[in-house]
């Protein structure tokens, strides 16, 4: 079972955190800090796997992937396979990339709820739901369509322009 998914930037700020077992807020913060603590001390060209027992309890491993300013971290137990989890991170990133075209940290920050939607289509209740990024995209788009149908266009835009033109 997958215990948690975290997206942390290289300065230690959480960008997305989802725990599949309920954890109190303080505990979540502590876990994020711990994960960041070990990740930022790791060299560049080492393996992507780690034991996470010291802060996440018995039988937990951690797989992470470092992209530019972001760490994407999956925590899971022995019922999953490390290499496969690495690929699941890949699926997640591929989907984000399809969704945002050249995804970067900014997209992740500003589309917080969409990130959750995407993640929920890949991992469901701690199990792998879908591994094809195009299928995930289809599902997300379906939800988005419903959204736009019930939505006027009057949203966001201006804000973006205001800081862009500055």
């Amino acid at each position: 079972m997958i215990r948690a998914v975290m997206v942390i930037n290289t300065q230690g700020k959480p960008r997305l955190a989802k725990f599949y077992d309920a954890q109190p807020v303080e505990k979540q913060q502590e876990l994020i800090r711990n994960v960041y603590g070990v990740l930022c001390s790791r060299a560049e060209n080492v393996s992507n796997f780690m034991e996470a027992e010291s802060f996440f309890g018995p039988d937990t491993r951690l797989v992470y992937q470092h992209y530019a300013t972001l760490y994407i971290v999956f925590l899971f137990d022995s019922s999953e396979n490390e290499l496969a989890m690495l690929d699941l991170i890949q699926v997640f990133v591929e989907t984000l990339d399809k969704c945002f075209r050249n995804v970067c940290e900014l997209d992740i920050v500003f589309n917080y709820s969409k990130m959750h939607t995407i993640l929920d289509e890949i991992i469901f209740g701690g199990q792998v739901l879908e591994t094809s990024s195009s299928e995930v995209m289809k599902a997300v788009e379906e939800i988005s369509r419903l959204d736009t149908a019930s939505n006027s266009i009057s949203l966001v835009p201006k804000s973006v322009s205001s800081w862009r033109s500055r």
Partner: protein
Amino acid sequence: MEQLKTIGRELAMGSQGGFGQSKEFLELVKSIGEARSKAEEDRIVLREIETLKRRLSDPDIPKRKMKEYLIRLVYVEMLGHDASFAYIHAVKMTHDDSLLLKRTGYLAVTLFLSDDHDLIILIVNTIQKDLRSDNFLVVSAALSAVCKLINDETIPAVLPQVVELLSHPKEVVRKKAIMALHRFHQKSPSSVAHLVSNFRKRLCDNDPGVMGATLCPLFDLIAADPNSFKDLVVSFVSILKQVAERRLPKAYDYHSMPAPFIQIKLLKILALLGSGDKQASEKMYTVVGDIFRKCDSTSNIGNAVLYECLCCVSSIYLNPKLLEGATEVISRFLKSDSHNLKYMGIDGLGRLIKLSPEIAEQHQLAVIDCLEDPDDSLKRKTFELLYKMTKSSNVEVIVDRMIDYMISINDNHYKTYIASRCVELAEQFAPSNNWFIQTMNKVFEHAGDLVNVKVAHNLMRLIAEGFGEDDETADTQLRSSAVQSYLRILGEPKLPSVFLQVICWVLGEYGTADGKYSASYITGKLCDVAEAYSNDETVRAYAITAIMKIYAFEIAAGRKVDMLPECQSLVEELSASHSTDLQQRAYELQVVIDLDAHAVAVIMPPDASCEDIEIDKDLSFLNNYVEQSIEKGAQPYIPESERSGALNVITLRSQDQHEASSHGLRFEAYELPKPPVPSRVAPLTSSTELVPVPEPSYPRETYQAATISSVLDAGPSELKLRLDGVQKKWGRPTYSSSPSSTSTSSSQKTNGVAQDVASTVASSKSRETYDSRKPQVEISKEKQKLAASLFGGSSKTERKTSTANQKVARSSSSHVAEKPQVQKVATVVTDIAADRTNHQAPPDLLDLSEAAAVSAPPSIDPFKQLESLLDPAPVTSVVNNGSDGASKTPDLMGLYGDSALSGQSSSLGFNVNVTSESSNATGTDLGRGTAYPAQFSKGPSTKDSLEKDAIVRQMGVNPSSQNPNLFRDLLG
């Protein structure tokens, strides 16, 4: 225009309306991104919370606004701030009719609430309704909430609906329903126990995705009880076969692998079902073999499947052919450049090693590589493997490595773990007592505060008992070597408390036993300890008791005792200590010192800590004295419970009465007096009354010492009688328990058990050594040869060179191995080994008796000798490569020097190669390091990405020097 552009931008980002957030949210994110410190960030977030609180208290907020507030609060909570005031609004939003709002509501509650939160009860109803909805998106949203929010109490409320959804027309819903049921199973297995048949049925679902989802709960069920699912073996095998043969729709391919996640799950399930079951395993052989053959080993996911095959093979009934396939996979993994694959290879090796130990033999060099890799994960995995393959023949090298690593890390969790492993291995396989003590010393010295106290007690017991053999001289040697090492270690600053306790105890017990050290020397050291660690009461207690023992032995031996001045002052200080325990010990010491030799020898017999303790609970040895006293007219003892009317009791009771009266009058009748006990018992117990004896819960030592001191104070001749009694019954036990007065009772209890354990360990050990010795003799010749060939360079070069060179190195090394000259080298090595006084065979790291000598130097002595043969230049060049490399490379060179002298041109040429390679090693490492960033920054920097980067900078979110386009690059 501006507007249009931004809308275009929005669309370009793919964030279709609804996912975007308002200006305020963007401002918030921006200001958080710009925050210079955590405190500033907290201020911003707290201000945001205040704003939101105010807004939420507004009675009619537009729903759309509400949605946005919730998202902001979810974000705020992710940053670690409390947003509980908004939970109720999230719950309310789940009731909304609009799908968008409902989804947001569900998202917020799943992130906010745990499954035992009070508000859950308000959501259950909504979930029930939504599960029945016609819109599958509503159902999906409700199902994801079910996974997170429903606990074992609320499962029955939604279970019927979820089960119904198993036959929903949409496969996505069926899939999620299965997973929700799986979650129920995880939370409360009994709640879905009756649904197992549903899972089985779903295995035959038309949609492969649903079938795949069903495997997850089945995996859990089978792990709990494999036997009731044996009938499914055939089905699983046939599914796996179909998947592997690409019978699934193309849509299920992932990186051109057919449904790899389904394959992995199936292989995991087969591993469980085939474990220890020959019949079931036989059905799997073909399909697993097929996957081994067909699976694409170039992609990451292909390797994941191969690894899972390997795990399956190691779990099911052994099949030599499959084992071969698995071995091949492992060697491919280990030879790979990828650390991830190496990691998996080491893990796989750990699984297969139980089945065929010789596999590790083939990969020992790779294993050594991994052990010396800078990657911590890989290193730890390798230690795991080494732990599994430890035998008495290689325990020294392995434990030494573990300890070296233990010293080098700061991670306390892992330090504790590896320290306990060291202790475990040392206890199980120790080749000699001396080694054991040295090893334990190291463990204690560096991780003393982390190891279990039991380990310390074990060590003390081991020193006291010896190794169970009837060889007194060996035991004495062990003890004096322990004393010696401890005296040396005491010089180091800041030793862990547990270790100091052991040291104090051993010094007290055996410090003067072999006559090498004088009593004043040892007591001086002990005084130093007590002084240096003056805030550690336990250590001080151990120290003062040890001093007492030393003096007692001196007195018993008839020597005159001059107490050192510092010792005197210590005793004085302690007798005024706040700790009653320390006071007690100090007073005892003073009393013991004034006793005569005979009395001391009886209460503190030397080296008697292992004697059994006999406890006379009836104190029958006092009978004589009691009878005498009664004859002289003393009152017989009346147990307290029966002293109702006696005069002396009234004084005792008066206190009670006083207490009672303060509460008011007592109206109930007094208890009836019980019939008097037989008079025979009475005198026995009365004696305890006469002497101020502490409760039985007191440490025994205290008890006895108190008795003695009081006896001496009183001084009447008849009391001497009692002292005799004490001697006979209590003398030894008291003594043995003295070092650990705080844990006396427990240590006594464990004594018997522990002795048993020790003896079994000892016996198993002797058996083990016998077993391992025999084969060693048989293959010693082969071993020499292999050792020589390995020393001849293959190990060295393989370690330093890339895979391309590896083959060359190997072939040349095997080539060299055949030459007779190398035999000479071998004999040199063995000669040196023989020089060592130790009788033990050169221990090898990988146990593979043959190669070990190379893979890790058995001990440093021979290499030190060889080092002298070297000219200093290469040594210094190699030193940079890390300590291990440094210690090994020289000998290699030395050996090469040897063979070169004998005129072998081929090996000489090779030698040159080695030198250059090893000195280059650091350089290539660096090169590899720099290659990575290059990968990130390459690729075309399109206008789009530049623009984006500019925005990032402007926002101050996380300006990066790298091109944000990198995902594209990475994904190709």
